[in-house]
């Protein structure tokens, strides 16, 4: 029976798909968002449950600016406006709510993220955000016109064609966005690395360890927290922008609260408060998710798992279940993740 299973499983496809996703654009964007969250949660101790609000702000800020054709519709200005929107979101989350205790900050941030998403989705903003349909409009999408074209086609230095081999074969568009994504991950990680070695970083970490002590030393805790929120938020918004370029459209469905928790899982899996944590977390996360999904799919298809237990169209839900289990068990048994330090990964509420 066991022999039978091994004969049915396409091992090459299993590893190939998992590897492909773990170095793909999705992994890069999740890593980038996790770098931002790492500054919030890992280094500053801010319980930000609204990561997705920053991603949405970046993606929508960029897409609205571009599709409306403001200031001549330049893509660089559009990206800049996406980042600016993220700063505004950081200020509007941070100014009023950074004084709150950690768990209330969590509730406020998740609520603000939902307010943003529901507003974007509203029928009344149809002309600006495309409502439930997103941007670009349905007509543009049918005609294959997107805000991503300038970046992925016009400015693409890679010649048309497919590169790589086996399951790691990417077309020029995907490859280019992958390069952009991982470069941004490296730059953002370098930035955080530098910041954490600076006096600024020491204050940030001191706030995480003991806010009152930092205050007693004359540091303006509120201002430092706000700066952390803005920098991390801008990094997370870049993740939203890269994802928008990859998919070619933005839609409110991409920014449901579950995305926030995906990124939390990535960060905790890799290890909060470590430079490599978000990167290793994201790659491992996607490898594990795709590997188990594909394994289950092959086992269901070959009849190894009977239909009564799991149907093949339910496999997509398994991803979410796995994410839930990973998040809970990591928090219980390995809060420092794969590469984090245990003493830096314990966040408490006084």
């Amino acid at each position, binding site marked *: 029976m066991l022999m039978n299973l091994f004969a049915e499983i396409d091992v090459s496809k299993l590893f190939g798909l998992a590897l492909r996703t773990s170095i793909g654009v999705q992994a890069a964007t999740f890593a980038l968002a996790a770098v931002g969250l790492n500054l919030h949660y890992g280094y500053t101790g801010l319980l930000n449950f609204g990561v997705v609000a920053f991603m949405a702000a970046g993606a929508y800020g960029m897409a609205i600016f571009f599709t409306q054709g403001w200031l001549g519709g330049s893509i660089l200005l559009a990206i800049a406006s996406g980042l600016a929107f993220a700063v*505004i979101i950081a*200020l*509007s989350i941070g*100014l*009023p*709510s950074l*004084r*709150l*205790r*950690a*768990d*209330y*900050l*969590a*509730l*406020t941030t*998740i*609520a*603000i993220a*939902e*307010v943003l998403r*529901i*507003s974007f*989705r*509203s*029928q*009344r*903003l*149809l*002309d*600006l955000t495309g*409502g*439930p*349909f997103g941007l670009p409009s*349905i007509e543009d999408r049918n005609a294959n016109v997107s805000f991503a074209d300038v970046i992925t086609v016009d400015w693409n230095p890679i010649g048309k064609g497919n590169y790589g081999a086996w399951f790691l074969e990417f077309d020029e568009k995907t490859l280019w966005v992958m390069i952009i994504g991982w470069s941004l991950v490296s730059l953002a990680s370098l930035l955080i690395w530098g910041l954490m070695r600076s006096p600024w970083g020491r204050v940030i970490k001191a706030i995480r360890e003991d806010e009152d002590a930092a205050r007693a030393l004359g540091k303006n805790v*509120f201002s430092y927290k706000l700066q952390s929120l803005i920098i991390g938020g801008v990094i997370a918004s870049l993740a939203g922008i890269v994802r928008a370029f990859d998919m070619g459209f933005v839609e409110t469905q991409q920014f449901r*609260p*579950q995305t926030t*928790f995906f990124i*939390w*899982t990535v960060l*905790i899996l890799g290890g909060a408060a470590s430079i490599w944590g978000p990167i290793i977390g994201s790659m491992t996360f996607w490898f594990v998710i795709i590997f188990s999904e594909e394994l289950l799919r092959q086992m269901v298809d070959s009849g190894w798992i009977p239909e009564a237990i799991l149907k093949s169209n339910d496999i997509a*839900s*398994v991803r*979410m*279940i796995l*994410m*839930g*289990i*990973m*998040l*809970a*068990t990591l*928090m*219980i048994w390995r809060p420092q993740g794969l590469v984090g330090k245990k003493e830096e990964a*314990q*966040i*408490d*509420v*006084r």
Partner: protein
Amino acid sequence: MGKRLKLVSSFIFLVLGLLLCLPIAANAQSDNELTIRGTVRVGRDVIPDVQILVTDAQDTEIGAVTTGEDGKWEIPIPGLGEYTVTLVGPLPEGVSVKEGATDQVVVNVEEYRSKAVGFQLTGEDKKPILEIPPTWERLLNRMVSGLKVGLLVALASIGLSLIFGVTGLVNFAHSEMVAFGAVIALLLESTTGLTGALFPLVILIAVLAGGGLGYGLEKGIFGPLRRRKMTNISLMVVSIGLAFLMRYMILIYHGAEPETFESFRIQSGVSFGPIELPAKDYFIIAISFTTLLLVGILLQRTKLGTSMRAVSDNPALAESSGIDVNRTIMWVWIFGSALASLGGTMIGLTQVVEWQMGEKILLLIFAAVTLGGLGTAFGAMVGGLAIGFASETSTFWLDNDLKFLIALAVMIVILLVRPRGILGVRERLG
């Protein structure tokens, strides 16, 4: 932070909020969008104030509207494909779905033009013209159904607030405990045939199952973890993981299809003065109201209730006055989870039972308990009533998809202005 900075920041936030609302308030209607539309009518008479729900092939809600004065409704859809249109109700007295027809219509939108959908309804003994009730009467009806939603949110919220009170845990899995109740009740009804007059038995078993779930969660997960001295923040993250686990288990084993209880399919309305509601709504309001009263009595008058409040106020003091804290916490979990289960079953009765119902109600519950004051059961009741009422009644003026905004806005403002809520006393500043 100084008072001035606080004032300035509140002001900035308010302005930003208003700015966000401004374009929403300016109604922009595009004319060449893809929609599903129709007119709900019986014979030649149109029916206003009936809720219509459109879901796509993956059972994601695309939109819900209430028919206008002229019985017309229209819901934009994202693209071509198969959609399910559900007539949620309530239908006026004497009107029902024709025999052989259903309250759900599946449409396949194959080209880029609006698709019209009709429901086959029939009026009792060919009643003459149905009158459209005056505006105040419809507002009154909306307010009564707001009261109903408020009672349900209150029921669902008490457990979360009590559990926070005695353990300090913000339990993100609470909404899945609500969904669990509804799914168990539906499963019971469809497998055991306990319909009609026997339906209260279904509710009872669902409530007991909910209590069992609470027992299991405390005994198997949260109790041991608390004794391992895990921080509440870590436990909160664990509860998020648990919520996803439960939600998608429900999806796999209940299915993506939204379902309704057989005993309470589309019902015709029952009038009570100017108020006209489906018969089941009176039932729901009565049960919820009584339960909330009983909860109040239990907390105020019984020994268990007193110890729950004592542990909530000050666990150390409670322990030293001879209260078994762990036993009390266990009872709070059982009790809170049973109430969540009851709330879920009731919500399933008024709307549909679906795997996403937990996700949909989670933020309403959070809004309710923060408004009332986290940790107090009475706060959760007051907050639940207020949030449910406000969000439901707002649909009289606002789009249906904006009703959650009301609840979230209330929650954010409360957290910023008076973080301890209306009835709370705890210190929440960090």
